[in-house]
Every structure is written in structure tokens, then in C-alpha cells.
């Protein structure tokens, strides 16, 4: 069970409907941040910064693992519906990468607790996502020769993971809105 770092109180609200509503709101923020991706120049056509992971990172500190997993499911389904990629390989990549990332982050969060920052979680998540996506692309699309691009993509993944993690950490520490949300769930 997650515990508020400052107060030590549990963050599970007794009202499940309220929690699901909050997860849906975070899901909408994931979709919103993924639309902001297009504002940033891409060094490579398949490169993504991973801004949509910001709400997932914040959720790691706020919600129980089952709600974080639900958030990731809403993120990938919502993204597939909005962009129309639900029935394509893009969805498979998004699903595989997102769940590899969140499972890795949940395990690291469980193992390291307060010893790991959001930057660390983000880097582990980005690494897991990239490794799985490279594996899927090798298996289903490009063939074994695609492993030659693995170091480049993993390097880019670490770089984007650090950037997203730094912003998430800053937002977590400075946002008054997030402080309000944390206090509400802690007090419920």
C-alpha cells in the first residue's frame, strides 16, 4: 500500500469511484502530453520523448499499483482510439512498451522505495520500453538485422527518460495542484 511521503498516511481513498475518476483524469493528461510530443523536433523518425509517461510517473507516487496499471491501460487504449491505431502494429508496440515500462517501474519502486527518484524510475521505464519495442520490431517487422540499431535506441531512451524524469520530479516537488490532490487522498 502506498504511503504519503511527508505525512506517512495511506493514499488509498475509501471512495473507489473518486479514485477511478482521478485515474481517468490522469489518463486524459497522458493523451494531452502525447499531443505535445509533436511540438518537439525529432532527431529520428521513430524517436519519441515519452511525455505521455509524466502522469504515469506521478501516479507511481500517488496510487496503488493496480490503479497505475489501469491508468496505463487507459493510456494505450485512449491513444489507440484517438489516433486510430488500435488495430495496427503501432498499438502492439505501444501496449508492449507501456506495460514493460510500468511493470519495471513498479518493481523498482517496490524494491528501492524512497531510495529511487522519479528520474531513476523514468530511466528504468524508458529502458524497459525500448528493449521490448526493439524485440517486437525484430520479431514482427524488421528481422534479426534490426538489432544493430538497438544501442542507438537504448541510448536515446535513457536520454529521454532522464528529461521526462527531471520534469516529473520538479513537478512533483513544486506543483500546488498535486499537493492538493495528495492531501485530499491522504485525508479521505
Amino acid at each position: 500500500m502506498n504511503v504519503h511521503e511527508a505525512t506517512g498516511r495511506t493514499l488509498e481513498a475509501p471512495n473507489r469511484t473518486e479514485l477511478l475518476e482521478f485515474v481517468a483524469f490522469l489518463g486524459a493528461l497522458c493523451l494531452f502530453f502525447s499531443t505535445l510530443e509533436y511540438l518537439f523536433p525529432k532527431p529520428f523518425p521513430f524517436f519519441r520523448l515519452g511525455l505521455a509517461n509524466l502522469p504515469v510517473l506521478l501516479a507511481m507516487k500517488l496510487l496503488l499499483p493496480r490503479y497505475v496499471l489501469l491508468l496505463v491501460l487507459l493510456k494505450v487504449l485512449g491513444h489507440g482510439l484517438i489516433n486510430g491505431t488500435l488495430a495496427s502494429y503501432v498499438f502492439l508496440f505501444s501496449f508492449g512498451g507501456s506495460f514493460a515500462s510500468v511493470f519495471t517501474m513498479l518493481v523498482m519502486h517496490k524494491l528501492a522505495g524512497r531510495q529511487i527518484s522519479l528520474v531513476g524510475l523514468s530511466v528504468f521505464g524508458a529502458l524497459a520500453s525500448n528493449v521490448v519495442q526493439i524485440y517486437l520490431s525484430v520479431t514482427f517487422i524488421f528481422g534479426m538485422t534490426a538489432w544493430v540499431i538497438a544501442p542507438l535506441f537504448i541510448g536515446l531512451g535513457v536520454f529521454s527518460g532522464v528529461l521526462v524524469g527531471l520534469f516529473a520530479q520538479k513537478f512533483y516537488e513544486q506543483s500546488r495542484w498535486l499537493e492538493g490532490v495528495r492531501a485530499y487522498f491522504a485525508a479521505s
Partner: protein
Amino acid sequence: MPTLQRPETFLGRHFAPHHLFLTGALLIPAFLFQPNLLVRIGQVLLFAYLAKMNGKRIKWMYFLIMVSSITVFNLFTPFGQILFTVGPLSVTLGALRSGLEKGFTVVGLVFISLASIRPELRLPGRLGGLIGRVFYYFERVIEGRKRIRPRGLIESLDEVLFDLYAPGEKRADGRSVAKDTTRFGYALMGVLLSVNWVLVFLASPLPF
């Protein structure tokens, strides 16, 4: 009642979201079983056109790079007649055809997906209801994005977030209203499915 308000598209006007999805689902096997590469490329162009009719922007350069890179990676596993050599690499007919088939198949499936899925498509059950809530909030976040400033990013984000989500607040229902399929929509569905399925049986593989 707030709804998902998007510019109406040609396919959106004539198809209920679940009928459009069904059409796409039935087109997938007709596309995958197509034995002729040239017909398959024609189908890819048709699906791209349908995706545009569904309001999607096609990034042609992205898909061109996609087909090219899949084909190039495939050439590293040579088989069949050698066409020419580039340095140490022998470009073979079998690898080239297989790469092009794979590349156009991957891109065609994306276009079918883009053409047949609309945000109004309701998934069944409680998960579908939650997705509806996600879209409701997404529309509201998009409305507030103009207030987000790069300078003072966190402060401006906070202002928008406070307006959109205050814990414990009573919220509106965000269900969207879906339309029925028109007669023209049913006719278009019939034509698309007939043409693509008939081509599976009529077209023969390329002679090389």
C-alpha cells in the same frame, strides 16, 4: 451534456463508429490474403484515402521511410535470383519482393486502422465507461492548453489543472452521442468489402 465535439468527417457522417470498425475488421483478411503485390499496393493507397476521409492526417514521409527501412533490412537475408550487388551486399529478387510485401502490409494495416477507428467507438463494459471519462477530460484539457506558458510552466499548468480537476467535485457526464449508419454508408461498406474480397480470388501472384 458535454460531448466529443470534433469536425465531422466524410466517414463520420455516414458510418456509425461500430459499423466503421466492423468494415475495417472485415477488410483486414481480404488485405492479408491478397496474393498480388501490385494489387496490395493499390489497396494500401485506397486505405490511405479512406483514412483521410476519416479525418486522419497521413504522414507520407514517415510511411515511406517505414516501407524503405523494412525492405532494406530484409535485403540482408538474401534469397532467390541476384539482381545486382552494392558493395558486399547482393540484392536478390526474393528478398526484395518479400521486403516490399512486408513493408506494404505493415503500412496497409495502419491505414485500415486509421480509416476504421473513431474516438466515438465505445468499448463495452466499465472499461468503456472509463474511456468515455478519459475523453471527456481530454476535451477539457485541450481547451485549457492555450493558457499554458513555457515560462512559469508549472504555475500555469497548476492553474489549468485546478480548474479542471478538484478532488471531491461533482462532475458532469461525458458520454458521446453516436450516429447511425446512413444508406450511403451501408452501400459504401458493401462496395469496399465486395471489391477487396473479389480481388482475393481474381488476382494471381506476380510471375516473378
